[in-house]
């Protein structure tokens, strides 16, 4: 990555971090309901991969920890926050919530809340790309625990069999909800598991964005060149619990501190300062500007946006009826 890109990405990562921390606060204030899964600690994963890919061009799908992936693809943070507030202006018009952010225009194909559910959907998106002949790829971001679902294996088999243009990114944060990978999974290194399907794979540090970017570039190039699927495992850590109801009793504060020593944002910041590309004051300015943007625009927009109308409760269950009448009534032209 060029220095200018790194500075831009640092600013984005600060937004991603502060956005999530502001969600936490809004949840405590009961502005946000339901389940809330936050991303701090893992920012280099999404950012490193998407810098190597083409946000808004490539199709991205993920699980329920989805706010940052949506924003990275180009979703407006205001609409993402408004969705968490359940507002009509939200990215899913208040019908989805935190776990179901979508932005089809930006080719962010959504967050899904059944662990592993997006695997076959991603392969299907890749199948559609293959049929239509485009140069896009499908990118599926999921956690390590998703690999213990049956559809993981079913999907790896089909993706390899049909050489589908799909990149599977495994953000291995070492915990499936509150159970550590050692206690749930016979194989710690997830990339080894796809060898069974002849899928090329790689593993790297998921905290250092330069490392993620270099590995992701090779992975993305492999898939885009028509060589079929690739599996990239990124070793990472989520600072907060699985969701807001999780007090992290299953792991030690010491372990958390070790990971925080390798914070993806601070590592990139320090590298840019050492290189003379920015100063600490510059960084503090970014933080201040980001917080001001979140408060004055993102939160303000979400607070002031209207609720969905109760009359529209059943809107979006089915396709707009008028457009479907020929098939519903059999009176096709």
């Amino acid at each position, binding site marked *: 990555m060029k220095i200018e890109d790194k500075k831009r990405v640092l600013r984005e990562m600060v937004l991603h971090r502060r956005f999530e921390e502001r969600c936490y606060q809004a949840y405590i204030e009961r502005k946000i309901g339901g389940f809330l899964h936050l991303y701090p600690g893992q920012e280099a994963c999404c950012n490193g991969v998407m810098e190597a890919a083409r946000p808004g061009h490539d199709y991205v799908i993920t699980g329920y920890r989805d706010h940052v992936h949506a924003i990275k693809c180009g979703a407006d943070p205001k609409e993402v926050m408004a969705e968490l507030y359940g507002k009509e202006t939200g990215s899913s018009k208040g019908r989805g919530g935190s776990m179901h952010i979508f932005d089809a225009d930006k080719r962010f194909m959504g967050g899904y809340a059944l662990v592993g559910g997006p695997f076959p959907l991603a392969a299907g998106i890749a199948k559609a790309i293959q049929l239509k002949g485009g140069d896009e790829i499908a990118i599926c971001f999921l956690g390590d625990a998703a690999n213990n679902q049956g559809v993981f294996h079913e999907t790896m*088999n089909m993706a390899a069999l049909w050489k589908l243009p799909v990149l599977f990114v495994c953000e291995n944060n070492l915990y499936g909800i509150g159970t550590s990978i050692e206690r749930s999974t016979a194989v710690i290194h997830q990339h080894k598991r796809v060898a069974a399907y002849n899928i090329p794979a790689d593993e790297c540090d998921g905290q250092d964005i330069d490392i993620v970017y270099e590995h992701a570039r090779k992975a993305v190039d492999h898939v885009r060149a028509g060589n079929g699927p690739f599996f990239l495992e990124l070793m990472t850590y989520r600072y907060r619990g699985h969701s807001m109801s999780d007090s992290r009793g299953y792991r030690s504060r010491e372990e958390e501190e070790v990971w925080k020593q390798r914070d993806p944002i601070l590592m990139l910041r320090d590298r840019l300062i050492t290189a003379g590309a920015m100063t600490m004051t510059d960084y503090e300015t970014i933080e201040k500007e980001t917080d001001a943007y979140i408060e004055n625009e993102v939160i303000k927009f979400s607070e002031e946006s209207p609720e969905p109308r109760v009359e529209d409760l059943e809107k979006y269950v089915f396709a707009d009826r008028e457009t479907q009448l020929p098939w519903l009534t059999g009176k096709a032209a």
Partner: protein
Amino acid sequence: MANIMYWEAIQRAHDEEMARDPLVICMGEDIGVAGGTYKATKGLYEKYGPLRVMDTPISEGGFTGLGIGASFLGIRPIIEIMSVNFAWLAMDQMFNSAAKVRYMSGGQLTAPCVFRSAGGAAHQLGAQHSARMEKVFMGIAGLRVVTPSNPKQAYGLLKSAIRCDDPVFINEHELMYNMKGEVPDAEYFHPLEGSDVARAGTDVTLFGYNISVHWCLKAAEILDKQYGISAEVVDLYSLSPLDRAGIKESVSKTHRAVIAEEDEAPVGVGSEVIAIINEECFFELDAAPVRVHSALVPQPYNHTLEKAAIPDHEDVVKAVLKLFGKA
């Protein structure tokens, strides 16, 4: 009008739609090189090739999800699940992904896919290959459920299901693929909603769908000839949504209702139709509606036990006679 078999009607709908639109594909176990367990995709592999006629691994959850994901980008997959018993493995993707994606994305994505599957008890296939599962599908918001009782419906419902932007589950029947019937020569789209009056009558309405329509027709014949009772047969080819107006109209005319289903009774088509009768035309009733249904048992293998578990036209006749106080 051609007199063709149920499977041929399904094959014709596939073929016409795949010839018209390159985005229509089909997928499932043994549907390509082998031509399909029930021949519903015979000849398509040779005509459209492996990219559009996909022989899948035996991974129902996986390939169903794959078809759904493709449909997000405008592909129109016709996903065959060889036996409805295997659909349990695919239900997570059908229900959580296909049926809900439009709603939870605020209308941004839609899953225009067709799921076809053979349900019903055939001949001694035992507990895990004889299920009727329409009751499960018809309770899911965002999913349409249709079930053809003859070749014309099998052809026309599939045509409409492929064109419709909503996900549609088509419940077929193992015993019906070789049934013959008239299908129009011209392209025909059967409505996905509503019901058909398969036989007009005045004294009692027999509600059926899929194979039980045939029990009802046979029963109506017997009731007419032997007992002088004029039965109307209503074919509920759309199970979701059920045709409230059609149910009300017929019962308001005949004032009596029998619902025949091959499924077990609890939480089924019969209970739902009776609920609709109560809501729409309770005061039109001259007698309490009656359900004819299977025994609540895992399907037995033994031939005699199997026959005892599944109702037929004689049970429908008995139910009607009871309604009229003649049994």
